[in-house]
């Protein structure tokens, strides 16, 4: 062995590597954003609920729990969320089973239809149910002439089931297509009956997936605002009660208190979902799925019919709202009209847009295009900013967490996945409390709305970025570095092109969320900043249901336009594997 003497050679001192410097700065920036725009508002809510002035007190909680009407919002929330969770999970499970374990025809159509609720605000389910089963519903008033209507718990549960269906389906579909079907075949070849195989093999092997889908549905339902606000009637739930207390009665302290109460089940469901998803993925084997045996005719027919049931409901919802926006007086006069698209004067302007159209349009047209459509234009602009900003930030966060792994990376990861645990309505209230201050110049502008939507949907963006970056071999990046590329070149020329698909699908996701979200931003709109999705709520509250339908239809068309554009750009369906949280 050649043992050499110690060299006297000169040591090259470490230049602060630009790589570590950049990583540090980026991580610091992301941490600052998450702490300031997520933790700080939540902290303000907690503070307001526990303090009166400087004094720690439980006063707010006592008044909540001693007021029967307010307290009922908690039990109501638990009842509707519990019922929705059970029903949706069961429905979606068998639907996923049909898509993954049987050889029914038309799986693609079923899958596509079942994802439709994601492209619309949750409120659409409520609007459709009201048109069909409300006081002036097509069925209730026109066909059956009954006084029964769907307002209240029933309506909320039915609407939430439809809204949560695709979210539960994604998880169950992944679970069931990953679990090795050879287990089932092995059991059957050992003589177990089909039913016994299902109970003893299929169900247990999917148990984490089922539980995690259930937790997600619970979380989505208990935090939703759009559905209960239109169809709840007098049936108050936590999310609507927060809104009532704050906007109706200016009782911010009670709003904050209810927010904290809502945070508990929502965070618990989120943690459960997160934990179970990890467990469920750990069970997934990387093996290719063996060929599916052709199902027996009875099974095939039964599942085909079964799968059409939720799909039919979803199609009816969309068709109803669409139609409802074009008929004169639902359900009495079905002659077609465009007048509901001439919204009542909503007030508000959109920068650039209003000026541009007002400069050459006159009279009625000027009012419609330049002013009445301003909220739509605002929503579109905001959604584009959210799409680009959200996709960039979550890609950066994912890149740092997955590839750079600097010290404190765990903190960044935890803060990045946390937003999904915080209900949008709570975050919205937190923003008022934290940022409605004269020196905070972006409050009351578009920017606060953009930031809010990005933060509220950060989790899914980061998780999908991480999943995608995991697939890039570490040595590809090292190859670039060893060839002399600096960190920015490496990222721009090598890493980014390889994550482009995930980036575009994240953009689509953020865009959809920005167009359709209600709960997060309802506290942030003002006379100056108006949003299309929020206008649906206000139009509905004003009793202008048909115009609410029209606004909803416009939002859906914009989202569909975006999906088509993305499909043309990337050649892929962006909706696959995407689900909404919060």
């Amino acid at each position, binding site marked *: *062995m*050649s*043992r*050499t003497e*110690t*060299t006297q*050679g*000169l*040591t*090259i*001192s*470490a*230049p602060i*590597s*630009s*790589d570590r410097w950049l990583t540090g700065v980026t991580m610091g920036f992301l941490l600052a954003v998450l702490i300031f725009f997520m933790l700080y508002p939540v902290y303000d809510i907690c503070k307001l609920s526990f303090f009166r002035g400087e004094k720690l007190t439980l006063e707010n909680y006592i008044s909540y729990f001693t007021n029967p009407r307010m307290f009922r919002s908690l039990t109501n929330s638990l009842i509707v969320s519990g019922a929705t969770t059970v029903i949706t999970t069961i429905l979606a499970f068998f639907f996923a089973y049909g898509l993954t374990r049987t050889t029914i025809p038309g799986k693609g159509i079923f899958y596509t239809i079942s994802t439709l609720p994601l492209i619309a605000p949750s409120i659409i389910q409520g609007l459709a149910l009201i048109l069909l089963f409300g006081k002036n519903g097509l069925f209730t008033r026109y066909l059956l002439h009954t006084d029964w209507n769907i307002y209240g718990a029933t309506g909320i549960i039915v609407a939430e089931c439809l809204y949560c269906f695709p979210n539960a389906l994604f998880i169950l579909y992944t679970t069931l297509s990953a679990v090795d079907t050879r287990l089932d075949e092995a059991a059957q070849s050992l003589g177990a009956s089909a039913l016994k195989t299902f109970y003893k093999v299929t169900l247990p092997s999917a148990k984490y997936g089922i539980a995690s889908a259930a937790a997600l549905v619970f979380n989505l339902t208990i935090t939703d605002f759009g559905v209960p606000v239109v169809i709840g009637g007098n049936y108050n739930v936590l999310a609507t009660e927060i809104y009532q207390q704050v906007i109706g009665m200016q009782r911010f302290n009670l709003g904050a208190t209810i927010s904290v109460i809502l945070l508990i089940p929502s965070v618990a469901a989120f943690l459960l979902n997160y934990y179970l998803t990890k467990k469920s993925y750990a069970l997934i084997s990387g093996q290719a799925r063996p060929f599916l045996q052709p199902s027996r005719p009875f099974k095939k027919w039964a599942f085909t019919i079964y799968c059409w049931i939720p799909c039919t409901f979803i199609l009816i919802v969309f068709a109803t709202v669409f139609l409802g926006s074009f008929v004169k007086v639902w359900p009495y006069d079905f002659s077609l009209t465009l007048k509901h698209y001439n919204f009542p004067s909503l007030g508000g302007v959109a920068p650039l847009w209003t000026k541009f159209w007002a400069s050459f349009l006159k009279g009625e047209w000027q009012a419609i295009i330049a002013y009445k459509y301003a909220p739509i234009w605002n929503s579109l602009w905001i959604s584009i900013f959210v799409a680009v900003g959200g996709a960039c930030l979550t890609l950066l966060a994912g890149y740092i967490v997955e590839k750079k792994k600097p010290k404190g990376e765990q903190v960044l990861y935890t803060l990045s996945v946390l937003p999904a645990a915080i209900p949008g309505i709570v975050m919205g209230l937190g923003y008022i409390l934290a940022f409605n201050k004269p020196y905070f110049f972006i409050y009351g502008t578009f920017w606060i709305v953009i930031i809010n939507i990005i933060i509220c949907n950060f989790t899914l963006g980061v998780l999908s970025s991480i999943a995608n970056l995991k697939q890039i*071999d570490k*040595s*590809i990046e*090292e*190859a*670039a*570095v*060893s*060839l*002399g*590329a*600096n960190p920015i*070149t490496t990222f721009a*020329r*090598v890493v980014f*092109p*390889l994550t482009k698909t995930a980036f575009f699908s994240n953009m689509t996701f953020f865009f959809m969320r920005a167009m359709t979200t209600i709960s997060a931003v309802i506290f942030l709109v003002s006379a100056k900043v108006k949003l299309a999705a929020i206008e649906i709520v206000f139009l509905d509250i004003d009793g202008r249901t048909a115009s609410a339908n029209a606004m909803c239809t416009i939002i859906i068309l914009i989202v569909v336009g975006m999906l088509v554009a993305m499909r043309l750009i990337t050649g892929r369906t962006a909706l696959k594997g995407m689900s909404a949280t919060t």
Partner: protein
Amino acid sequence: MGRNLRLENLTKKFGTLTAVDHVDLEIEEGEFICFLGPSGCGKTTVLRMITGFETVTEGKVIFDGRVINNLIPQKREFGIVFQSYALFPNMTVEENIAFGLKVRKMPKKEVAERVDQMLDLIGLRDWRKLYPAQLSGGQQQRVALVRALAPNPQVLLLDEPLSALDAKIRVRLRAEVKRLQQELKKTMIYVTHDQEEALSIADRVVVMEAGQFRQVGKPIEIYQCPNSSFVADFVGTSNFFKGSRYEDRVKTGKREFKISQSGPPTEGEVFLAIRPEKIEVFKEGTLPSALEPSNVISGKIDVVTFLGAAVRLTINIDGEELISDIIEKEFAQRQLKQGEKVLLYFPPEAFIVYPMTQREGIS
């Protein structure tokens, strides 16, 4: 003295695990060095410390007289070839090769010339517009090789570059690597766990085990004079006997071999190692008379495996298995068959003796 690369007392610890354990080595400019060792022995870790992707726990990496421990990877100008090829899937062959040149802001015309030159080196001119996914594994690795060579690195490091390829292509490509190395006179450090590969291409081989360098030497030295029973076992195939030595005799079981190695250990418990091709095999009754009688043992041929030009015999001697390789011609001439009783001759000078303490438990 050229631009030598020197490792001094180099050590890497991952927590409590010492992946690389105080190793020293001097690599001359233009030398072709192979790191050879079983998986997990720390080869990649040594390489990554040289390239700067892994920090050094203790010791120094010295290049051209300068300690470069803290130099960032892109400043080291060392080329790397990865086992997984690591070609950029979003770029064509041409763009892959040009990448290292463009980031150095080389003028366009020179880049084009250099890319042509590189493509000619591997005879892949026609493939320049293809994407990596359209190439076979062997072609991809060729591209990876010239991509790393294009910016004219000071040292080229290759981490098991061929182990993802199938046997035939592996042999062809390793000849190509050797040819390139000789043509370009580039310092190359080549990591492999395949002893045949290491012996056939390296100027010097470093045999690693458990984070340490067990032996450094020319391939022929390593093969013929392994300095430990580990090296004897890992490099090539060896038969081992446990025994105790006194003077030129080693007693093993009820047998006693005469040996001619005079060096240490001269007495006490030892291992005897002998290469399979050194053992001579005769049919009963055909034994030449001049042979040392104590070094002849009788056995039975259990298995016959054809290796091409040679034949590997697994021979049972009193329940123990032993491997002997003889050339195919001799196998035929001596009319050996499976199940046949044979006499084995162990030439005294073919035995290598190791102290027992080095490695326990080899039978």
